[in-house]
């Protein structure tokens, strides 16, 4: 299963890069001109995101470096302990929605410390793979089009992260225990 899937992911992009222009040329599209036209938008979009991302990264960085995040995790510990969730993976629940790089670093650390085939290693891998950096996704997507009021999008994202976190733990115990 994994080998098939990994072959697909290795081939997907190269095939697209060849197929799209070939098909377009067959349809008599001036491929290079089209590419440049579309590509121009990419630069503007990236520049538009800078203020949003800088703002968010500053806040997250201050929150983490000050020790406030560790404190928050400390407060939540008893609650999670009472639910039978290994407290080692707890920081992931808080890190994951706010920082992709940070949570990946934390997961790597857990895998290194407890081993990839330990329950904690499996849970951390599953959590990392099944949830996303909600705050980053919102910042980039809404920043690019100038949306100021995110509506209920953030709540939906955070709830689905929490559901993903709990589901990961539950499924890992079900499958690997």
């Amino acid at each position, binding site marked *: 299963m994994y080998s098939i899937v990994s072959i697909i992911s290795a081939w997907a992009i190269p095939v697209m890069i060849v197929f799209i222009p070939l098909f377009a040329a067959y349809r008599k599209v001036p491929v290079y001109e089209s590419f440049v036209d579309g590509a121009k938008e990419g630069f503007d*979009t990236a520049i538009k995101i800078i203020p949003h991302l800088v703002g968010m990264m500053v806040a997250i960085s201050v929150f983490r470096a000050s020790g406030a995040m560790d404190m928050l995790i400390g407060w939540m510990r008893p609650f999670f302990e009472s639910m039978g969730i290994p407290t080692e993976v707890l920081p992931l629940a808080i890190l994951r929605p706010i920082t992709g790089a940070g949570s990946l670093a934390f997961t790597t650390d857990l895998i290194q410390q407890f081993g990839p085939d330990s329950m904690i290693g499996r849970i951390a891998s599953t959590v990392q793979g099944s949830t996303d950096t909600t705050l980053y996704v919102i910042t980039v997507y*809404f920043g690019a*089009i100038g949306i100021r009021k995110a509506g209920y999008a953030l709540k939906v*994202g955070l709830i689905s992260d929490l559901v993903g976190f709990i589901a990961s733990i539950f499924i890992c115990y079900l499958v690997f225990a």
Partner: protein
Amino acid sequence: MVNWIWLFFIVAGFVVAAATGNVEAVTQAAFDGAKSGVTVCFGLISILVFWLGMMRIAEDAGLLSKLAVLLRPLVRFLFPGVPKNHPAIGYIMSNMSANILGLGNAATPMGIKAMQELQKLNANKETASPAMCTLLALNTSSITLIPTTLIAIRMNYNSVNPAEIVGTTLIATAISTAAAILVDRWYRKRSSLSGS
């Protein structure tokens, strides 16, 4: 809500740092954060420029509208407000496919493009439309088929079976995506009832 979280991060960070006698850390952290924000954006430039170029070719060739026709039933269910043949649908589909294949780099530009198309349909340009919230929900709950990065890390630390988490990840993703769609529906209904 983003406003409050942002304010909370900064204020809580300052208060804790001050209380623990670590106030200089705030300065350093603020500049580090700003720097990484710009670094990430510059990293995005190459990907965005390249993929939006590719996507324009696909659009001009009529590929995106083909994709939209193929997956119409699913999109009609998830995005009831978007007109049948609107270009947004093609971009939404490409964004979802890229996510499912684990091609995060390709997914972001397509998601942004989809958002830009949805913005054209949006009556109030400063507030996210329900369709935008749904697209965001799909992206933040991260539909993943192969968690490539994780498998690589597990290999690196000599896992006996690095890919054994593919199944658990798939199920957890399916559950969180289903939850995201349900919660999104619930909010959508509630906000339309309150007449906003």
